[in-house]
């Protein structure tokens, strides 16, 4: 790990990644270059199989890359131990997933406060913070409900609250509206815009041009390469 002061949230240089399926090597990312400024809202678009989910996994330190450089918040992310990866995820990144990924047996407030549990924040503070975020998401009356007792839109708002709870500078969202109807999608995207307006950096993968339209910049991926080189 190396500190690099490039004053960007994300810098990716000539990043490649292949999957190995038996003896066959399948290149997925074939040299990606882009950067994301602090406070930017970037959408990544592309057809399925273009490598956008893989890219998001790499950006989220859930997966490794082969060649090139990934600098997150001034830190070169090169093979990290699981513990280091967990540390950076916990401090720098909030995830929002298409299928929400809430723990079904935990109430909304317990789901939201979980990242703080792993940062060893005392329970009272965790609950206080989670409660405030849920209220802000308009879920004041759903605080002690289980995810199964909530609609898709409500679940996604719980998931967003969870992504925000440890105040990460970067939010990564993978098709956050993929499972929602258009009206609820609109609500969720409004929330994303607000988050961005607060100064958090936002990287969203989406199929939806309406969503992408809210982003300040769109990165288009095709076949493991960025096709719009004009920006970034």
């Amino acid at each position, binding site marked *: 790990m190396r500190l690099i002061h490039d004053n960007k949230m994300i810098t990716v240089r000539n990043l490649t990644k292949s999957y190995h399926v038996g003896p066959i090597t399948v290149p997925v990312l074939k040299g990606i270059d882009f950067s994301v400024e602090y406070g930017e809202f970037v959408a990544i678009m592309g057809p399925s199989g273009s490598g956008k989910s893989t890219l998001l996994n790499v950006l989220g330190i859930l997966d490794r890359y082969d060649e090139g450089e990934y600098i997150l918040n001034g830190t070169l992310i090169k093979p990290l131990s699981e513990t280091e990866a967990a540390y950076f995820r916990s401090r720098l990144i909030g995830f929002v997933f298409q299928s929400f990924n809430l723990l079904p047996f935990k109430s909304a407030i317990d789901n939201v406060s979980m990242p703080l549990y792993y940062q060893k924040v005392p*329970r009272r503070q965790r609950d206080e913070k989670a409660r405030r975020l849920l209220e802000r998401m308009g879920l004041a009356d759903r605080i002690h409900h289980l995810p199964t007792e909530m609609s898709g839109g409500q679940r996604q708002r719980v998931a967003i609250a969870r992504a925000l709870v440890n105040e990460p500078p970067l939010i990564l969202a993978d098709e956050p509206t993929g499972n929602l109807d258009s009206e609820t999608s609109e609500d969720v995207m409004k929330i994303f815009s607000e988050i961005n307006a607060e100064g958090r950096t936002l990287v969203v993968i989406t199929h939806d041009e309406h969503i992408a339209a809210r982003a300040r910049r769109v990165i288009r991926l095709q076949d493991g390469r960025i096709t719009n080189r004009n920006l970034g």
Partner: protein
Amino acid sequence: MFDFDRWAEIGQSLKQHKLRTALTAFGVSWGIFMLILLLGMGKGLERGTMALYQDTATNSVWINGGKTSQDYKGLTPGRLVNLDIEDIAMLARLPGIDLIGPTKLVNKAYNMQYGQNIGSFQIYGIGAANAGIQKLSLQGGRQINELDERESRKVAVVGTRVVEVLMKNRIDPLGSSILVGGIPFTVIGVYKKALEEQSPNRVYIPYATLRNVFDSSPYINQIALTIAPGHTWASIRPEAVKLLAQRHRFDAQDSAALEIYDISAEVKKLQSLMTGIRLFMVIVGVGTLLAGCVGVSNTMLVTVKERTREFGIRKAIGASPSSILFMVLHETLAITLVAGYLGLLAGVGVIELVRGVGIESDYFRDPQIDLPIALGAIAVLSVAGLIAGYLPARQAVRISPIEALRHE
């Protein structure tokens, strides 16, 4: 260990599968229950068996005359060896012999009478030293002593059955006179039957009195002796047998000529048998416990597999590998310890119940679990819990968050 959040997490995840948790826990409870039961009952077996010797000095040796089986200086085999009172005096001079005394039994049963009641009982003449060799447990009164022997007093220590028949248990037998073959004897002691095979039908009188009154022959039935501290029968035996062989003219190598019971050797044999039984019980108990732990490990592996997505989510939101490892270990440990503790309580409960009911027989009495064994069981449990949890915990740590999150 006293992190409440951690315990809350454990409670939450165990509650999700109540039946499975209960069945898994039962395996461990059963294992520890069997271990405790086996060890406790083993203790009972040991105590019961050792109680067989409670009336007998464990350093005692008993010698009876046998029948020769070898030629000796022109004498044919098959002769009876009749021990006599001179043998006692001769052996008493050997270094290493502490107490020594004769037992002589009158060949015919005499009628004994008290008032109108008559019974027929066996008379044994014993030396004053015998009280220290075969310790008759007295219900009341005293043993035959030196003075009784020296003065050939007409005193008797009788069995409970004798008191029952002659006195119908209605009067205090101590100090009263009974007629033995028409001769009055004073009852000085009543012994209680300690063991099943011990007869309550005997009347013990001083050896000297028996010879004076009933049978003047010098022959005796048995020599009883104890070994002085610092000596063993093995070291005394050759000399003792040689002396007896010379007097009674048999080959000292002739093992049939004397019947010798060395109680210390018997006790030692029993003790090693008990050690063997205890070891066996520990192995069986620990084996049962191990089976329970394999059950826990297996269940936890399945649980971890089922919770792949959950662990993936936890990792994605910042759970470190060690926090996942400890979470699973902690869960397993919680199941094994709680279940084990319940099994321990049940085992101790059953043992105490058996004790309370007072089941006793020749080979079994007073089962018990001592504190060190209980603590040992807890220690074994903790280790077993950690071992049972380690594999599933490693499995959980290896889960990749991407795989887990893809897994719908």
